[in-house]
């Protein structure tokens, strides 16, 4: 049972990677425009993420260092200031988008303008962080997140052509006459929205909060695969449902009301509430995770006292940082900033800083002072090198692709 609860960290981390507002909309757009042809991008992002998440957890379990703390120690503040500054901006932008996504979910259910929900959603997120414990947030969100499995169940209900689904896992060119730039843009968006630095930092901080030790190395490996596998399955489910329901009708996903249609075919009148519940839980969970993460990275990089289980009076700086980030998010959404525009910008920023985030893995995960006998093997190093090369390539093409293929 104790090991089962440890899976909560993997599931809650994957919710912010796969089931948040940016990933959901990108997967839905990909399925509507190119049917199953972009499944490979989700699969590739999942494999990359599993390796990086496993390494972040192993670092925390063996060295008792979070990723942000280890990067500060090993590379110094001059190096860290760039990815740290970018991540603080990125976390706040994505947090804003998640508050917006949760508001859209409530709008779908209530009909009330999404902007009116900004302050109540932000207050609820802040209150949970202020009063809650890490385990409550971790287990609560991961249990509620299971509702998103309705996307996977829906695929089985609609019985797709499994041969066509399987072919989607092989990278291929878009069909003749289709918008090639949009295909490239969506592939990069899926990778960019999934391999996010905040997931790596959050997971390593969570492993410290959950007091993992060297004994948890095998558990960490299983949790990484299981957790990211869960998120990936949901993300693929969204893409497949969109391919099955929206693509034949020629519907391009430009609004969430259109994306909600994917669940109405298999689940009838329950489709919309299920979609709204999945969107709300995914976005609200991601907002909690991002609020915590912005406090984690700053506290750990600067050496402050930190921890969600501490009382606010014992880590005032930690609490102030997430309070300020949530306040910024609430104000922007209440002012009418569209969440999807924010996710486009934050995706580009994620891709641009990816090489700077991944490079330290090569050094720290091979340093015996941190990992002792649990250093990276040849395969892990090869994967990090491959992600680094891919990250550098993506960083070069992301801006032109966003201009040419973004909608």
């Amino acid at each position, binding site marked *: 049972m104790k090991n089962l609860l440890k899976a909560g960290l993997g599931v809650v981390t994957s919710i912010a990677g796969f089931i948040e507002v940016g990933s959901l909309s990108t997967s839905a757009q990909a399925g509507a425009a190119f049917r199953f042809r972009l499944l490979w991008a989700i699969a590739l992002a999942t494999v990359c993420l599993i390796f990086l998440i496993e390494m972040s957890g192993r670092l925390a379990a063996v*060295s*008792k*260092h979070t990723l942000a*703390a280890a990067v*500060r*120690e090993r590379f*110094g*503040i*001059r190096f860290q*200031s760039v990815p740290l500054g970018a991540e603080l901006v990125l976390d706040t932008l994505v947090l804003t988008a998640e508050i917006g996504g949760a508001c859209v979910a409530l709008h779908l259910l209530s009909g009330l303008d999404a902007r009116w929900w900004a302050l109540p959603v932000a207050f609820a997120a802040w209150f949970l962080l*202020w*009063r809650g414990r890490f385990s409550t947030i971790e287990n609560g969100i991961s249990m509620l997140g299971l509702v998103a499995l309705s996307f996977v169940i829906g695929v089985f209900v609609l019985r797709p052509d499994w041969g066509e689904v399987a072919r989607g896992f092989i990278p291929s060119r878009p069909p003749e006459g289709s918008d090639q730039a949009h295909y490239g843009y969506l592939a990069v968006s899926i990778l960019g929205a999934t391999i996010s630095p905040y997931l790596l930092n959050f997971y390593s901080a969570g492993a410290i909060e959950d007091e993992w030790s060297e004994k948890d190395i095998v558990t960490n490996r299983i949790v990484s695969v299981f957790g990211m596998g869960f998120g990936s399955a949901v993300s693929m489910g969204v893409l497949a449902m969109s391919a099955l329901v929206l693509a034949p009708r020629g519907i391009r996903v430009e609004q969430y009301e259109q994306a909600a249609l994917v669940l109405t075919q298999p689940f009838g009148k329950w489709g919309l509430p299920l979609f709204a519940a999945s969107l709300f839980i995914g976005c609200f969970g991601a907002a909690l995770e991002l609020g915590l993460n912005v406090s984690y990275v700053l506290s750990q*990089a*600067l*050496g*402050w*006292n*930190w921890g969600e289980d501490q*009382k*606010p*009076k*014992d*880590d*005032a*700086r930690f*609490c*102030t940082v997430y309070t300020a980030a949530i306040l910024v998010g609430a104000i922007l959404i209440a002012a009418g900033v569209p969440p999807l525009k924010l996710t486009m910008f934050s995706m580009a920023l994620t891709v641009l800083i990816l090489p700077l985030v991944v490079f330290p893995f090569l050094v720290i995960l091979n340093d015996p002072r941190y990992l002792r006998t649990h250093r990276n093997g040849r395969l892990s190093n090869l994967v990090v090198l491959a992600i680094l090369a891919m990250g550098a390539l993506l960083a070069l093409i992301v801006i032109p692709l966003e201009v040419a293929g973004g909608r």
Partner: protein
Amino acid sequence: MVDELHLFRDLLDKQLVDREERPLGKADGVVLEIRADAPPRLVAIEVGNAAMLRRIHPRLADLSALLARRLGVGSGEPMRVEPEALLRFGNDVKVDVDAPRTGAYAWERWLKRTWIDRMPGSGE
């Protein structure tokens, strides 16, 4: 105390903890005395935003100190830890101070006093 340490490897940017193992901050800077006929000598370790920001850009350090003074947080100058206070090197560097009473906690105390303590459920 140790007889020899590598400033970059063992000290700079390392986590400092106080005698109760509470986080004090990072070793944001080191102060050396340059002597004519002898090797440089470690005078102090600096902890605080100004010391850290000075390594990125001096103007940022000045702004940080100015902000701290304007808001009444403190002098804005980094706290200095003398080498004699270093107790242990390892995963963290342990120093013989009481962290919450030092200048490294000036912002923590100010935030607590300004808003955290006034909120319900802050733990008081």
